[in-house]
């Protein structure tokens, strides 16, 4: 029996040979260059292109955030650098690049230097599995969704590194808050994703989008009520996971100054900053891909519009909602954050999983309701029942809304 690595290597060789043939590179390469080198070079080129393109996203997002917040707050935002302030992020980046490289003397120097790159790399690596349009995805993996969950969890490692290595109490507070928060919210987030996997049986992101390509009714979000709720849980957990208001406790300015990146300045701070916006984009992109049909057009007659327009449109819509939340809502307290996750999101997620499973089973057995000679599938029945159940729950929930009054 062959070693799995050998099998993998053979596969890579085969793919590369195929690719070389298709691209007709045979003549272009200097003779005698080993195939492995060709593969490596190709991967490096792809990676460089991908990172360059992806690094542009946070730059756009930073400007967008500044403009959005400005209009929310009755201001104009940046107007000076470039037309309509378009170049202000670049100017800021250059400024940060030229700043003095400060490492606090009492810090753990190696960890302190490493931390921003861990956060940055972990958040950017996830881009590989997101399909921006019909034919292209950087890494078309069968385990794409799993890779996203796995790699995005690495971010918290970088954050803890930063908080610990800074040797500052505020940083430590931020890091510990981040650890508790991100690890907790990963669970409802994972459960929401799991529902989709249960329904389709694939983890390949491209396949997931193709499954939704029929139109708005095929989006997982609108398949049945449990997925609808799941989409919201996913989005809110994602907001919590990328530390944005109302869940921005790890960097709560009014409480712990800047949290885990209090001691960072210059280009290292820029890395955290870029990673933060890249994260916001990525979770939105994943949400758009998983629940809102990714690059697929909402209506079949619009399918002439390129997929990337739909993909970016949906993603930017979600990013805008994140900004809307941020510039409207106050921040929750750390205990409220935890109770929201463990007392509300998690039980709801479990009910969701159960419901999605039951529906999938009923669907497979073709069990439904007869209504005036019309056959209603289990999903249709659940949609009809949904508003009533929601109203009922809302009525029950009214008893719990009085804020807890703690003794002085």
């Amino acid at each position: 029996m062959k070693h799995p690595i050998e099998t993998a290597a053979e596969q890579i060789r085969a793919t590369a040979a195929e690719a070389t043939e298709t691209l007709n590179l045979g003549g272009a390469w200097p003779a005698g260059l080993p195939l492995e080198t060709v593969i490596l070079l190709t991967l490096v080129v792809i990676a460089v292109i991908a990172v360059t393109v992806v690094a542009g996203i946070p730059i756009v997002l930073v400007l967008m955030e500044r403009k959005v917040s400005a209009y929310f707050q009755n201001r104009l935002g940046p107007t000076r650098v470039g037309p309509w302030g378009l170049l202000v992020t670049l100017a800021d980046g250059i400024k940060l690049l030229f700043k003095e490289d400060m490492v606090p003397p009492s810090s753990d120097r190696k960890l302190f230097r490493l931390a921003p790159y861990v956060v940055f790399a972990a958040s950017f690596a996830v881009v590989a599995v997101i399909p921006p349009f019909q034919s292209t995805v950087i890494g078309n993996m069968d385990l794409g969704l799993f890779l996203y969950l796995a790699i995005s969890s690495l971010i918290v490692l970088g954050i803890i590194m930063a908080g610990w290595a800074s040797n500052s109490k505020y940083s430590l507070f931020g890091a510990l808050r981040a650890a508790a928060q991100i690890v907790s919210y990963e669970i409802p987030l994972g459960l929401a994703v799991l529902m989709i996997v249960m329904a389709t049986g694939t983890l390949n992101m491209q396949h997931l989008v193709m499954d939704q390509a029929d139109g708005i009714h095929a989006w997982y979000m609108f398949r049945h009520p449990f997925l609808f709720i799941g989409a919201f849980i996913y989005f809110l957990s994602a907001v919590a996971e990328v530390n944005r208001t109302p869940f921005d406790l790890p960097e709560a300015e009014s409480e712990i100054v800047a949290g885990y990146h209090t001691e960072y300045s210059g280009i290292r701070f820029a890395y955290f900053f870029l990673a933060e916006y890249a994260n916001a984009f990525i979770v939105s992109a994943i949400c758009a891909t998983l629940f809102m049909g990714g690059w697929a057009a909402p209506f079949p007659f619009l399918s002439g519009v390129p997929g990337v327009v739909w993909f970016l449109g949906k993603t930017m819509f979600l990013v805008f909602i994140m900004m809307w939340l941020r510039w409207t809502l106050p921040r929750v307290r750390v205990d409220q954050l935890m109770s929201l996750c463990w007392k509300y999101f998690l039980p709801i997620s479990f009910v969701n999983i159960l419901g999605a499973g039951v529906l999938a089973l009923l669907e497979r057995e073709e069990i439904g309701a007869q209504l005036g000679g019309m056959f209603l599938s289990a999903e249709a029945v659940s949609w009809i029942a949904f508003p009533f159940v929601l109203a009922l729950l809302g009525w029950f929930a009214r008893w719990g809304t009085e804020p807890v009054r703690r003794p002085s």
Partner: protein
Amino acid sequence: MAAPTKALRTDEMVLSMGPQHPSTHGVLRLELKTDGEVVEEAIPHIGYLHRNFEKHAESLPYFQIIPYTDRMDYIAAMNNELGFVLAVEKLMELGGKPISIPEKAQYIRVVVCEMNRIASHLLAFGTYGMDIGALTPFLYAFRDRETILGLFEDICGARLLYNYIRFGGVSRDLTPDFHHKLRRFLSKFEKNIDSYNTLLTNNKIFLERTKGVAVMSIDKAIQYGWTGPNLRGSGMKWDLRKDEPYSIYDRFDFEVPVGEIGDCWDRYKVRMDEMRESVRIVRQALDQMEEKGLLDDPNYAAKVSAKLRPPVGEVYFRTETPRGDLGYYIQSDGTNVPSRVKVRSPCFTALSAMRELSRGLLVADIIAIIGSIDIVMGEIDR
């Protein structure tokens, strides 16, 4: 190596919050003894902004002290001035040399003080939102505050430290279009308060953050010497403008809003409601000025000698500033320089309860408390 059975030792962490911290409202330093996120004790350390006001005042002629009072509670400078000026005027009256203040000056004083109260409460509202994590209310609050400061600039040239209220009146007359601009602002502002309440006051997260946090009972509040909106937040109906009317406050009809249980939200809400009452007072003052034909009256100040020499004696006079009872104790030896000036600061008493209020709460609650008692370090340290 330590024995494996030994439990992991934990210790309290001392976190020095401030004097440079985004939300300690100035240069306040809090020594927090924390166990994780829980604060076992918060000890306030003050004095970083001490400027020796009381000693300075002992070497300055009376009228030169007024600009120094501006710099105590720089958020509500007009109210500070009014307290001092009224105290000196009272001193003159007690000594049998009363200054007759023109009717117009009385009204102008009330109008500018109430406007300044609105500006101060707006700042409290905005920064409180920021402390809780909502950044947008701050900018809305400053938009309205900006209008008020613009009006102040019109009448006295300054936007923060006015030196406007003088012995016997005010330093300058109102500009001709002042009351039009003010009325326009008031009608716009009243609507804005509703939108602020929608945006922040009744926000679910905001309620969760402030309701039931740091409850101060009436008894305890009185024991600590709390006054102003903080005391009213605990449910005590105590407002010097109503209970010991000074200046011409007895001519206006207004309510004294009070809270229910004395938590952070109640203290905050009292301020929001007080802004409405201030709008009412300003409106009534403008109406009365119009009725009495005072708007065109050129007489806005009595002639008072720069070498004002109050007769020998002492006086304690307190007024209701946006932060509570601000008291001035002045001792005169008959010269043009007071022999002693002592200030009773409402913020100082409010901050003194910090240790008691914060016991066992979370770090985020500490910020909520500081914001809710609305302190100005300039007045505490003086």
